[in-house]
């Protein structure tokens, strides 16, 4: 839920990166964190297991600048991708303003993508949201790997509603900011619509 504070003239929005385990959600956030000026970001908080798998969520606040005198702050979250952390995923979707689905382009992860996308729709519904009416972007990650499925096939399987699609290699930053920009733009456009 967007929080607009007229006293401090701030707009705060929540964006959640969703997707199957090891698809690169945390890597997206890490790249954004590493590439952003210190004054525009807070700390990157990672609630992870000892093997660096996301346990609860990763979080980073990002200040993008000012729109008509209002500071725009985006709170970026990732969910844990592993199937058995579903309770955590539901919690993190509460109050969401926009979602990025990070798909793993590797052939052997196709089933995991489909399962995770289904899980996203289901969890959004339990929180009272409809994916069709929510700012949403699809990212096809790991395009640099040899065993990837062609993009048009992935789009055919995973695109839900004509949402923007970006090819990405989150480890080197390819497509990371394009994805963020697209979802942030949709969130602000929603605000404009009222």
């Amino acid at each position: 839920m967007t929080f607009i504070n007229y006293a401090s003239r701030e707009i705060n929005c929540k964006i959640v990166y969703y997707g199957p385990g090891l698809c690169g959600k945390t890597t997206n956030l890490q790249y954004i964190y590493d590439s952003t000026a210190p004054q525009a970001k807070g700390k990157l908080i990672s609630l992870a297991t000892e093997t660096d798998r996301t346990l609860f969520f990763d979080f980073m606040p990002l200040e993008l600048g000012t729109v008509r005198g209002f500071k725009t702050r985006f709170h970026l979250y990732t969910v844990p991708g592993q199937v058995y952390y579903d309770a955590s995923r539901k919690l993190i979707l509460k109050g969401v303003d926009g979602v990025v689905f990070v798909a793993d382009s590797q052939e052997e992860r196709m089933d995991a993508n489909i399962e995770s996308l289904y899980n996203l729709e289901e969890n959004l519904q339990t929180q009272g949201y409809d994916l069709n009416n929510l700012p949403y972007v699809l990212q096809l990650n790991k395009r640099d790997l040899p065993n990837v499925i062609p993009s048009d096939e992935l789009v055919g399987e995973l695109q839900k509603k004509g949402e923007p699609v970006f090819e990405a290699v989150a480890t080197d930053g390819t497509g990371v900011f394009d994805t963020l920009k697209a979802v942030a733009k949709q969130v602000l456009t929603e605000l404009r619509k009222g």
Partner: protein
Amino acid sequence: MAEAPFILQEHQFQRLKTVLARLCVECAARVVFLVDRDGQPITYHGDIGDMDTTSFSSLAAGNVAATSSMAKLIGEDVFPSVFHEGERESIFISVIGRSLLVVVFDERSTLSLVKLRTKRGSYEVAAILDEAIAESANNHASNNSFFAEITDDDIDSLFS
């Protein structure tokens, strides 16, 4: 569709700040935060030192979200408060509807004092927030012309 925005007007913000300032003194607390249950910091009063208040708010909300789910698993509807006791500093979190009142205190105060004072303050905070939520829909409609003036160029300029 995403939920309607929560709009806090300046006079409501100032009233919340006044309640938090009084609570901070009454609880003999180091700092008192008001945080949205989605993790957005609303305001605070007290000594934050070099604390990262944005991360703190997000983690407080995550903490309450997790314990609330645990409550449901054991047949409780919700845990209305959560307490973390440290060696020097402790944290008491009181759930007020969609928001959390978070009190950070040390050995100069006690849990019972914090609980007692927070309970009274909670009613005042809840009343202000209820008013803000009720007005949010109307405010959004009347202020929509302001947001409608946001152009694609304005949005694009954020990423230039």
